[in-house]
């Protein structure tokens, strides 16, 4: 349901655009919200997709993105662990930021969720979030 807090043990995925990637590496700019437009950083809740493997979850995400976004050739999907992101940011940020990750389904994307309590200039937080992305959990956004 909209507004539900995602379980700490679950996973989310962030669509990273080509302009937020250099030499194949995702940069913190991928985790910055837009000023005046966003109240949260868009992510997708993987477990609600009810897939049996990460491979199938990523395939499902690719289908979702292909329908709602322009997916550039070098775009990537970064998978994050909900509890790890929240813990890392709380423990390492100067203001002990408490992030909230909530379900925020859309008509064409029922897994859509958001990371709340971010500002457009939170580059320190963006770097901390990026630090929780494991290299093995980055996938091409195009098949």
């Amino acid at each position, binding site marked *: 349901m909209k507004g539900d807090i995602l379980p700490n043990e679950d996973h989310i995925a962030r669509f990273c655009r080509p*302009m937020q990637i*250099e030499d194949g590496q995702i940069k*913190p700019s991928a985790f*910055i919200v837009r000023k005046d437009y*966003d109240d949260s950083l868009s992510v997708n809740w993987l477990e609600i997709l009810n897939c049996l493997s990460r491979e199938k979850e990523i395939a499902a995400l690719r289908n979702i993105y292909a329908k709602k976004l322009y997916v550039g050739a070098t775009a990537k999907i970064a998978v994050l662990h909900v509890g790890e992101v929240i813990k890392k940011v709380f423990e390492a940020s100067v203001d002990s930021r408490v992030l909230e990750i909530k379900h925020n389904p859309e008509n064409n994307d029922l897994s859509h969720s958001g990371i709340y309590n971010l500002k457009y200039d939170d580059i320190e937080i963006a770097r901390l979030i990026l630090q929780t992305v494991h290299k093995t959990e980055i996938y091409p956004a195009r098949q």
Partner: protein
Amino acid sequence: MPDLQTNNWLVILGNSSKVYGNEFLSDYFPRVQATSVAWHLENVPSQQFLQSLSYTPSSAVNQGSGAVAIQWIDTDDPFTKFDLIDNEDRRVQDLIFLIRTSLAIPYREILSTRLITLFCYAKEEDPDSVGIDTGSLLNFYNFLRLNTDLKRPSITLTSDYTIYASWETEHKQVFDVLFLPGKDMDVRFAIFKPNDRHPEKEFRFSGTVTSDVLRETVAPHGVLDWILE
């Protein structure tokens, strides 16, 4: 109107030379530049929309460098979105052209090519977008002009199309800078590095300053050790 008798204004006169009151800018604006990317800068009528640049000599950071603020000819037709986007695109092109042809900026060709690539990525996704925020790009340009001894940063764009520069080392030292748009020339910066006495722990420091004092602000934290050539 700017006072052309002072050092504070730079006037672009068509394709001719540029004059700071009583001093010449030595940068060379070539007519033809080879580029491997699809967007050919030699076809950009770069000076067409540049009316003047204000120049503020600065002694705070680097002697001989200065901050630049651009004034544009107000020829936009406010009634059509197409024209607004078109003119915004040209402003971005003008600024990238300035970076590409500023001899004081190291890696100017690589940096400008990277900026063009980012612009193309943004436009490919959304042709109606600004591509790169001109205020952020101008802020970045001013920073480059003031700091001519930097290693080449990694450059990406935020979803607001503002410039995000990073210097990272394999020793887990990170210096991130977000060049904010607007007349204030603010930047948001963050430093991450191992704690000198407790290497297993991480030192973090962040803040917001104007781009002209960024260098002296972060210098006490050892950042210059890994961002300078």
